[in-house]
């Protein structure tokens, strides 16, 4: 398979690009909701519009009412989301939760997927327990109780946790914290008694929760995949989420870079356009090269994931780490090359810096994933 978008994918990219530029633009969405102190951090109207275009169900199988497309296609939408900093539950709902639900029984799929596809529902995923992404350790406990389970413990930084109609929770059903086995995934509905959200606004104006579970009763049907064998689905959704957030990061990087390169062609100092100074040209050219490479590995990782390749796990971490570095460079150079104006809230470049910071942390930062690359490679 060639490593560029085919015709259908190029068409999707055009549709997504046009839509995000028109409807998902920074002024219309990110600033709009932020300045109103919105408790969701995104607009439900836009989510419905994304559903009308089919985006919400891009990874949902056709049998379940979705488009049955792959991670390359999801990545295309995410890249445009990233470029425009469009706040939406796409990553958590349409990538993470959709991947989890893809491995669920008919009952659960029938209960949740129609709402996802129609844009009426929003889902979240609760994995992390602490400030860093460490999915190898799961302490949150679900104990057998009758035909079902009782869930207790705490999850941190559940993105969109408070607005979610259902949260996919990774909990321990046997063994000790760091065991690979003994993890089970549960679909926990919004109104479950004993679930409490402590909502926090993050630097990029997105909303997350610290969520506690106090003997939350779950019926046996709410198990996604196998009891004690949840790692399999968990790994799948992590891979999908890593590649997806890498794709969004590529969009953030490109958005910040384009804006900066444009600025270099407008701003004059010393009687010249600042883009004439070689000190800036070389840094811009280096940045271009890093962003291109980050984009290539992200598309490759998505292709491998779609092909079910063994190499997908490794390359998902490579992509996540590479994008974190490249996008980090794009926003840092972006703010610096804008000079004083780059530090103002009125100017958009700072918003790219904030989103990048949150995305870098999401599902593991560059340190975590570079370390993972080393471990998977045997050193």
């Amino acid at each position, binding site marked *: 398979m060639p490593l560029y978008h085919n015709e259908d994918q190029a068409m999707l990219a055009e549709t997504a690009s046009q839509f995000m530029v028109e409807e998902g633009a920074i002024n219309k969405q990110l600033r709009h909701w932020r300045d109103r102190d919105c408790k969701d951090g995104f607009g439900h109207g836009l989510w419905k519009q994304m559903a009308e275009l089919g985006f919400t169900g891009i990874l949902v199988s056709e049998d379940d009412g979705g488009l049955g497309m792959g991670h390359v296609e999801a990545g295309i939408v995410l890249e445009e989301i990233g470029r425009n900093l469009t706040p939406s539950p796409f990553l958590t709902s349409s990538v993470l939760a959709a991947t989890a639900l893809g491995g669920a029984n008919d009952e659960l799929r029938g209960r949740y997927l129609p709402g996802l596809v129609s844009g009426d529902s929003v889902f979240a995923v609760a994995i992390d327990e602490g400030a860093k992404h460490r999915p190898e350790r799961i302490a949150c406990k679900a104990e057998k109780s009758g035909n079902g389970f009782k869930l207790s413990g705490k999850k941190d930084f559940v993105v969109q946790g408070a607005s979610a109609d259902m949260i996919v929770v990774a909990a321990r059903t046997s063994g000790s914290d760091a065991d690979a086995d003994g993890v089970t995934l549960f679909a926990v509905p919004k109104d479950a008694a004993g679930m409490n959200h402590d909502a926090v606004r993050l630097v990029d104006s997105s909303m997350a929760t610290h969520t506690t579970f106090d003997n939350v009763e779950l019926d046996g049907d709410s198990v996604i995949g196998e009891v004690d064998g949840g790692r399999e689905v968990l790994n799948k959704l992590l891979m999908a989420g890593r590649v997806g957030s890498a794709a969004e990061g590529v969009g953030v990087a490109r958005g910040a870079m384009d804006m900066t*390169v444009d600025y270099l062609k407008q701003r004059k100092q010393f009687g010249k356009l600042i883009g004439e100074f070689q000190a800036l*040209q070389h840094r811009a*050219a280096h940045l271009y*090269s890093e962003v291109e490479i980050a984009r290539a590995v992200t598309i490759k990782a998505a292709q491998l994931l779609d092909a079910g390749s063994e190499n997908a796990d490794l390359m998902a971490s490579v992509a996540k780490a590479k994008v974190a570095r490249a996008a980090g460079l794009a926003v840092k150079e972006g703010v610096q090359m804008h000079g004083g104006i780059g530090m103002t809230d009125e100017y958009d470049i700072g918003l790219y810096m904030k989103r990048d910071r949150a995305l870098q942390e999401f599902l593991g930062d560059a340190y975590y994933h570079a370390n993972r690359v080393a471990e998977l490679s045997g050193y």
Partner: protein
Amino acid sequence: MSDLETFREETRAWLEANCPPEMRQPVRDEDDIYWGGRNASFKNDAQKTWFEACVAKGYTVPAWPKEYGGAGLTPPQAKVLREEMNAIGARPPLSSFGIWMLGPALLHFGTEGQKQRFLNEIARGEIRWCQGYSEPGSGSDLVSMQTFGEDKGDHWVVNGQKIWTSYADHADWIFCLVRTDKENKYQGITFMLFDMASEGVSTKPIKLISGNSPFCETFFDDVSVPKSYGEDCPGFVGEINRGWDVAKYLLGHEREMISGADGGSRTAAIGAVMKRHAGELDPLLRAELANFDVDALAYACMGEKFLDEVKVGKAHPAQPNMMKYAGTELNKRRHELMMSAGGSRSLEWDSEETGGGKPARNWLRTKANSIEGGTSEVMLNVISKRILDLPGA
């Protein structure tokens, strides 16, 4: 099975039958590389067998048309062959500036007669070419070059000096930039082809910091270069005085080659190998190796994407400059890390254990990667100007 899958099966079987095990080992010594040419000799039978099998199949230049010595593979087929060769670590059967540089330029600008003659010679490894671009006063600013060809009707008389001419002392022929109009900077250069055995051509090897001397000063003293080598076979490529277009086109291919975009060892991860050699890795070195591996594996994807896009005309025409910049900087980093992981052992200059100082010599050689074929700074200038469209670049 799709046609491409069938082709993959066939290719795998063909490689299995024709690529000797010795030719699946990484290239270690300069003489592991077969360059061809009038005076070439094979290091061993395996090298010869592999080379001859490839010539017969058109696989020294798989994507060139059959009538010019290639196998006429389509872009997807060529990719499959590359993947299958990389998978078994097969060495290139033939390396040459003819394949990497002159060939592509002739395919684009050459006359039918030139293609018939020169491309077939290249594909069969009969003639080894060298590149006469740089001069003592003209490196990055190549277009300022002065070597002059005086028009004598049916031939030119060429005088001047080139420098850094790789393998000039081993080459049979040279493709050479010669000024034929002193008034016209860009449109006053002719891209000439001539025999290094011509009277008046002399070379003087230059020793590199690695201790090897793969390049030379090349002097032209009243060298007579014919305007024609027979019917439809001019002694220059493109038009007279328009050699700069050919030179730039060729540089794109040279940069693509130096970038290592086609995968293989230059883009591979190294952490695991370093760990095996070193036993224990300092934690900070391990971290740097991990960061390097991320960059190397990502760059390998960029190489694949770039080549895929080139094949269908989707790549930005200046993209080889980006590839060269990123690929060569990466390769320098690779060797810095290999030196660190190797410790004092890798400082040995001529010991047997190090194969005559391989680690140190290779490390030093990589420093040229970001100079030869256009420096990193020049690559960044080109990206600024042609891709980012920055002012005054």
